[in-house]
């Protein structure tokens, strides 16, 4: 049984701007290796996360629309800035409305998307399966297919699609060493700063610099993808927190004044 324990400060966990510094020191990182046999070495207190966007985009077919096929739509799970998710995700299963033939659609390789024609809106269950070294559990998402815009009430347009996307992050707490080594430099995965002493098995050397984050090139629907800005959200939250904190200070002051004045009142009465 080998045990490596080390301490590390989590001063730069990921590349996110405005990452809040966690004041508590990062915990012991510990690699347990039972008799050098078990293939899964878990790394404690590290989390690997994969930012994804899932949703649907639908185009009205215009003159080509028929009664049962008025729209062409695509449901997809993509990297937040359209990176290749194949390194983490093995397979995605889209469960469509039972009126579709073969309502359970399995997509075995990236891009994880599915295009169909139809006329009705319904909820699509999206099950994500991961590679063996990543996680043996599946993750389920739910998305409501939208064909008709709620925002724009005008005549339908064949040019502009109706897009509904959600940003989320898939989090793997305590990832396996193998997985970590494999995705360490992959653009689709956010890996926190690793302690220097951690020896990972050599990962794949190829295509490390081939793709960068934010690589939204060559997707036919790429121009419509929503860009999710973390900075905007953080700015808004910071402003709100400032307001609330100011008010807390004000309240505290009033409270302490009240507490201070109460006894003096009493003495003046007596």
């Amino acid at each position, binding site marked *: 049984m080998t045990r490596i324990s080390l301490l590390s400060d989590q001063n730069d966990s990921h590349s996110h701007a405005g990452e809040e510094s966690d004041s508590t020191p990062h915990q012991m990182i510990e690699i347990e290796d039972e008799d050098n046999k078990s293939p899964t070495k878990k790394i404690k207190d590290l989390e690997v996360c994969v930012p994804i966007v899932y949703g649907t985009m639908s185009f009205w077919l215009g003159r080509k629309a028929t*009664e049962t096929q008025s729209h062409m739509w695509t449901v997809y799970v993509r990297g937040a800035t359209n990176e290749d998710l194949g390194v983490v995700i093995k397979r995605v299963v889209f469960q469509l409305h039972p009126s579709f033939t073969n309502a359970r659609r399995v997509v075995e390789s990236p891009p994880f998307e599915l295009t169909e024609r139809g006329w009705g809106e319904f909820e699509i269950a999206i099950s994500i399966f991961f590679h063996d070294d990543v996680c043996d*559990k599946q993750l389920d998402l739910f998305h409501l297919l939208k064909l008709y815009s709620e925002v724009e009430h005008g005549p339908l347009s064949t040019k502009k699609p109706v897009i509904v996307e959600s940003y989320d992050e898939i989090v793997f707490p305590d990832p396996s060493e193998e997985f970590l080594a494999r995705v360490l430099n992959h653009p689709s995965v956010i890996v926190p700063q690793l302690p220097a002493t951690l020896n990972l098995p050599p990962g794949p050397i190829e295509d490390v610099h081939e793709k960068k984050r934010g690589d939204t090139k060559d997707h036919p629907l790429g121009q419509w993808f929503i860009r999710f800005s973390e900075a905007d959200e953080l700015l808004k939250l910071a402003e709100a927190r400032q307001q609330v904190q100011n008010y807390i200070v004000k309240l*505290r002051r009033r409270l302490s004044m009240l507490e201070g004045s109460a006894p003096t009142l009493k003495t003046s009465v007596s």
Partner: protein
Amino acid sequence: MDAKDILGLPKISLPIPQEKKSRPQKDSQRKPDGISREVYALTGGVAPLMPSVDVNQLKKRHQPENEKITWEWLAFTNSARKDNLQLYHWVRVVNGTPPTGDYSFAKYNKSVDVVKYTDEEYEKHLMDPAWTKEETDQLFDLCERFDLRFVVIADRFSSSRSVEELKNRYYSVSRAVLIARAPSPADISGHPLVKEPYNISQEIERKRALSMVLSQTKHQERKDAEVISEAKKISESRMAAKAAQDAELPVTSSISPEGVEKTTAPVDTASPSNMQVSVGVAPLMSMAENAAAAAASLRMLRVYLRTYALDQMVQAASSSAGLRTIKRVEQFLQELKVNLKPKVPTKAVCAEHLELRKEILTLLNLQKLLQNKEEGSSYRESSYTETPETPKDRAFIPDSVSFGAMSAERVGKRDQKRKGPGREAPSSPAQSKRPRKLKATDS
């Protein structure tokens, strides 16, 4: 290019409207008999305000031809009376023969069967040190006279006895006589007097409680409600703390068998800075504990979504607060124009969001505290009872607030389990499914 193209409708004509026309009208809308079509049309199918009964529809009165009916002013006697008083009333006389038999209302003169006991029975079964025989006799006499109206009986009773005492004596005597006379206990086991004996102490207690509730003032009522809700809150927060502790145990022990990190393991999410922020909040400890438990249980999952983690942490952070407080926090977020659920839930955004929620919770608690203090100093004697748990809501209004401008909130995905129709259901046309009624996600 035709009108349909311009409107963006598919070109298939709709078969359904024609079908509808040929279908017969529903029964409820059919013209009732006895009203002319023109008159009915004026009502527009709406039921008239005045009842209009068609004479033809009424049941014909059955009256044989050979019957001659007269009404006569005749004397009658009432068998329910014992004084043979003669009164007169109008009687329906058929063919000159007045109806025979008893006065029709006599049967409604019900009287109670009050048990009669003999002297011998009294000696044998009914002796009671609290009651003399004379008193008991008088009681039964009055019971018969006033048909067991015990309030009246108590009023007329010579010695002062409470209604409960009278009832108790009456029912116990009746019961004893009944049991003594029965050939076997099985014969009278179903009798109400035997089955449900009168319980004087419970009856006294019941009336006392009732009168207490009735004589309670509004003030006391409110005070009670407050105490109860306060107690409920305390017990809830204790339960939550306990649950958090329980959840922590297996996780910490699974981390390392040596127990090296047991003490430090679950605390990393509730950093000391959080604690400082929320000073002045009573259920602080449970909040931190809950957060730790939530973080630990998340770690047990091998994969989860960031939004799920946020939900769990939000729940943990507000578990000690009441439903109302949670609602007010959300209201507050809306006033600050912050999304209730972040649109870009990265780790940093979620952490900030959680902190913001905690700070708002602190703020609300401070507001409450301050209000209590202020009212307490103005009139100390009622400082507790007079402060309900709603501090004046609009004490704080953020600078950039416009009310009602709710930030569009993403509807929970799982709530929309509504299955829409799919592709292969051509019987209903596309237009009819175009409604913009779906509550849907924004963005």
